């Protein structure tokens, strides 16, 4: 197992070159890449005959507060990829400032990314360049907030029955 992971790290490092910012080991390893390179990284992991990560298990957004990063608020994306012939899995991680929350859509590579990217847009407000239909998927169309961001209040502001004159809400 350790050897296989070592091999994977070496293969990925060779395929990505300078785009590989950091390698995160463990049973489900991850490679950190710059946001502008997400599309090319996923494309190379897909095309490389020795890697063949041709199945997108999942894709999700993530939000880090300024306290967590020590470097301002950041949004991120995590792609879960699967190399079916060799049964290996890995993640591709990227983070970017909230003001520049835009990455290239990977729908040309994985059609299944269409709804997943809409979900990330719906809950985190991450935009995807060249997405064919970037609209909300789970929440009502008229919603104007991105509810899974950490600054969004969890409880519904329109609820009255929990208001208590002595103890507040």
């Amino acid at each position, binding site marked *: 197992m350790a050897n296989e992971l070592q091999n994977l790290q070496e293969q990925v490092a060779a395929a990505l070159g300078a785009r590989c910012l950091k390698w995160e080991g463990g049973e489900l390893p991850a490679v950190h890449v710059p946001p502008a390179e997400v599309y090319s990284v996923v494309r190379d992991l897909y095309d490389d005959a020795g890697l063949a990560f041709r199945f997108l298990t999942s894709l999700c957004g993530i939000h880090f507060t300024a306290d967590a990063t020590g470097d301002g608020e950041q949004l991120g994306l995590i792609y879960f990829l699967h190399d079916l012939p060799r049964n290996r899995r890995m993640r591709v991680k990227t983070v970017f400032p909230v003001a520049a929350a835009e990455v290239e859509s990977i729908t040309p590579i994985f059609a299944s990314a269409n709804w997943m990217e809409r979900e990330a847009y719906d809950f985190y407000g991450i935009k995807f360049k060249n997405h064919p239909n970037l609209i909300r998927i*789970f*929440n*009502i169309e008229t*919603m104007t*907030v991105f*509810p899974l961001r950490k600054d*969004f209040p*969890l*409880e*519904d502001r*329109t*609820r009255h*029955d*929990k208001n208590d004159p002595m103890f507040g809400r």
Partner: protein
Amino acid sequence: MNASAPTPRQTQGGVTLVSEAPPGLSGEGFFATSLSAAIGLARAKSMWPMPYATSCCGIEFMATAAPHYDLARFAMERFAYSPRQADLLMVMGTISKKLGPVLRSVYEQMAEPRWVLSVGACASSGGIFDTYSVLQGIDRIIPVDVYVPGCPPRPEQIIDGLLRVHELAMSESLRRRDTAEYQARLGYYGIA
């Protein structure tokens, strides 16, 4: 009939029971009552409910409709799965904000007279789902006649709520839709 010794008049939802009717108002094969009471009785005893079940309260409703609790006892075994044929909208379960407009259009398609029964904490107030995606009570979008509390309520509670809807049907004005109060209620929700 016991004509010589009149018993005290007993009524059920405004309808005088045949066996206890005062002399002269009933006999072999007939009884006299007001038209509104007769129609109210007919409405209550032939109500077609439309189940709008979205979560666990819907499971309790299925138990209510099954033979053990047996909704057919209340002449309600015929469910209308079209709002156009339904008299009673039974909302059972969590209604998300995205589902709100759908529920509202279902209500708008129902013909008068129509009643709404809100079953369970979620439909009545949002319940435990105090969050961005859940409608905090269906009375934000449609008028509700009877609320059934519980999370989820037992079938007995649902039956109790249904019987209260029956009481409404028997006791309300036949043309409730014309009353100022009802008009104001619909106006509050912006339903024409």
